[in-house]
């Protein structure tokens, strides 16, 4: 009598084990965002307030809610949190992907975006910084789902630029009137990580009166604004790298001769006389 009982128990155990395993080639099916929210309630609540969450009501690519990105979730849901269940890992988790796979995860939908034209060859992608370093789909702020605000996200890694912006002369980034992306393209640009195809064209967007072409040019200005200016911040007024006359004397061997001490002690900025230092349409010595 013992043998049939043992056989029955063994058979029942096998049946249970087989029932718990996904059948060979079983594919997951979509279950809907409400099922995901049963376990991931906090994520679902935050997601609804994000740009992706709000957009999921109208965008075709997001019509399946969570499963639009993470894939069909029936097997993952059926695993009910059991990490040993093979179905548990069938859900797509970008945090478990390599850097480039993680980027491809987002590019499935976003590769056609105008802003991402140069992404593949851009500096962030080449240095292993993928979308998830800056963007958070579940908790991101604003239209671009950034992990922090538009400036704080960049300054998390770029600490030297963060401290430069605290120097006496700086662009109004920390004041909130500009952002890093006013000048830089984090997704890759034509010239490095700049928004324009050259530095002088970038500066010309806001400072075109300094760019010329002038009838009387100052060659280092036409060459590059960074010959004289430290763009992220400086101790000197007007973002100059060095105080005058030291800045000018770096190229101009010596100041022109003067014989009056009153002029020497009373006048120490070259631009006190050479005011139109970026170039002039009137005077070849930039005095007018």
């Amino acid at each position, binding site marked *: 009598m013992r043998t049939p009982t043992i056989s029955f128990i063994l058979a029942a155990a096998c049946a249970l084990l087989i029932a718990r395993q996904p059948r060979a080639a079983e594919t997951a099916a979509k279950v809907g965002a409400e099922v995901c929210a049963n376990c991931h309630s906090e994520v679902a609540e935050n997601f609804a307030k994000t740009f992706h969450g*709000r*957009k999921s*009501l*109208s965008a*075709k690519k997001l019509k399946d809610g969570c499963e639009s990105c993470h894939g069909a979730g029936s097997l993952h849901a059926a695993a009910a949190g059991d990490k040993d269940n093979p179905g548990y890992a069938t859900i797509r988790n970008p945090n478990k992907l390599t850097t*480039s796979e993680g980027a491809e995860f987002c590019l499935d939908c976003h590769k*056609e975006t*105008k802003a991402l034209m*140069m992404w*593949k060859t851009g500096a962030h992608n*080449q240095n*292993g910084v993928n979308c998830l370093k800056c963007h958070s789909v579940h908790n991101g702020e604003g*239209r671009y789902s950034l992990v922090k605000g538009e400036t704080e996200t960049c300054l998390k890694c770029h*600490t030297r630029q*963060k*401290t430069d912006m605290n120097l*006496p002369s700086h662009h109004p980034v920390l*004041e909130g*009137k500009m952002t890093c992306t006013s000048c830089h393209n984090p997704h890759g640009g*034509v*010239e490095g990580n700049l928004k324009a*195809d050259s530095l002088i064209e970038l500066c010309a*967007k806001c400072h*075109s*009166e300094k*760019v*010329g*072409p*002038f*009838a*009387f*040019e100052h*060659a280092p200005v036409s*060459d590059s604004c960074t*010959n004289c200016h430290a763009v992220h911040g400086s*101790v000197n007024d*007007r973002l100059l790298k*060095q*105080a005058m006359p*030291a800045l000018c*004397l*770096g190229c*101009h*061997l*010596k100041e*022109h*001769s*003067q*014989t009056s001490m009153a*002029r*020497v*002690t009373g*006048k120490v*900025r070259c631009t*006190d*006389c050479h*005011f139109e230092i970026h170039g002039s*349409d009137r*005077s070849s010595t930039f005095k*007018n």
Partner: protein
Amino acid sequence: MTRFLLIGLLMGAGAWSARAEEDAAAATDNAVAMRFVHLDFEQSRGRVQEYDGKLYRDMHGDVKLANQGKQGLFDFSLKDIGSTEENGVLNADYQDNLRISAKVDTMHHRQDYARTGIILKGAWQPTTHFTTVDIATTTEFVVRRTESDIDLILLNPENAAQWLSAEFWTVEKFGSMAARAPGTASGTATLGSANVNNTKRDVIIGLGTNINEYGAVSLDIVHSEFKDDSNTSKDTHAINSTLKPIFGAQQMTGAELKFRQDMGKDLGLTGALTGRQRENLSNGYKRNTIVGALNAAYKARQNLSLSGKLYLNAYQVEENSGYVSPIGNKGNGSQMDKTNLKGDFNANYRPVEAVRLTAAYKIEIDNRRDHGDYNEGTVGYYSDGTLVLPNGQNTQTAHSDVRHNFRVGAKAELPFGIEADADYKRLQANHSSFGNQNNRQNDASLTITVPLPQRVDMVLATEYMDGTGSQMPWNHAESRNDYRASLNWAATNKVCVGADTSYETIRYFTNGFIGNAAATLVAAQTSPIAWHEGGMSNRQKNTVVGGHGRINLPMGFVVLGNGSYTWSKEETPMHWASTVGAVGDYTPRDIRIARGSVTVEYTPPKYKHLSARAGYRIDNWVDKFDSSNSGRASVVNAGVNVKF
């Protein structure tokens, strides 16, 4: 600003709200805030509130409207209403077809005239020689800058890779700035106030499409115009001399083509081609530019990726040979034309998952044509006594130079979650492009990130740079040491604090700073030579310390605070026994800026749609040499926010 507000309210309250009501899943997130504000300031606002021109009087307000539904989503916000620095944003998406975004932002920029001085007989003495016209050292110069931007993108609902776009961007500046004009006597100048009134407008029309399953192309046409309508003021001391600004009208037209193409799974190509002409309508000069870029990224193996970039930027100036300036000068017939060619090659290798190695090489070739050299027309001595006769030296612009940049780097994930990132770069050029540039330079950096318990991250970073330039008879050299430490702490939801500190020194060395009997720094034959401490012409030290925190308290209270302290010093030390006394420094700076704010927020646990907020902010700017730049500003605000 009123038009922007009305448009936004109509669009939001009308079309989208009506649709949203039909959708069970739709939701709105609207808010209105009002707050009382008050500003106190002492001395000058020119530096302490360089970019803050808000009218801190009576009340400011904010409005935010947001909703979304099956038809799309809509966001509108207008902040700082009543402050004269309103900031408005509008975003509207209609399903997958249309995206509209618009923005308007106003800022006041104070730019007091930059005054400086020297250390004479141990005491700081300010610049004295100006003749001022209708201004004083306390006169404020403020420019109001208003930026507005409208962006439209029309997408093919069947193929999101096909789109049409249009962007209209405008910046208007109005106000006054400090301006200079040469005086009638040689070596004198006049300082006064000049009117600022100019506008810049950009229009960009674009289109894009995919060209196959793995590639796409886009084209943008841009037209830009700059116009100056300012009134100039005449300098009564000098004939034919006007105070600024009179900026020439300009226009620019260009076209930019971009493409991307994946060649299989492992190779991606991107590129761009731009043609542009920028014209100064006041003098008839034109700059024609062509830019081309071709980039490739190749994944050779799972742990090895390579990239290569080629970049060309060539511009040529068409001079207007007939141009004569208002004061009778014939325009320059030889402006610099330049070609810049770059090649940039990178390899990233991960021998094991925890280690990432990088090697890079960049070559940059500049060719400059058709420009003159600036001739040093006067005599001078070097600090070693070498005599240079008049016209014996030119300030040259290099006609061509080749720069090689090498870089190696390593990033490693160490035990206990520590990450280390080390980098070394080397520049080797045949000579400098300009006298103040390096043709040899080393850069080394090290960053270590240490995770501590309770989700604290500590980052330590250091960078070192030294470089030399040897284009002309004198040598230029500079070095920089930079140390940074930051702490970011998000322990629990109750407490979150962080700190940033940095210290750097920058040293510029030049031995071309000379003088003699006839040269600038010396008035009489008896003091022939001015020389600098150890050959150094300029030294800067910058220290920044900052911290921020947020504490969640019981019963719905939250306290937020942040603060920073910046100490920036610049010295050009010298030993110069002049006829009027010993000169110890030519343009010293010592600036100390303290900023701090604390805010308390209260949200009743039972009424989460209501919140109250009170805050205090203080900024203190101290210029240790020139007290006319010093100032202190403090702002109090208290208000309520209602969500509905």
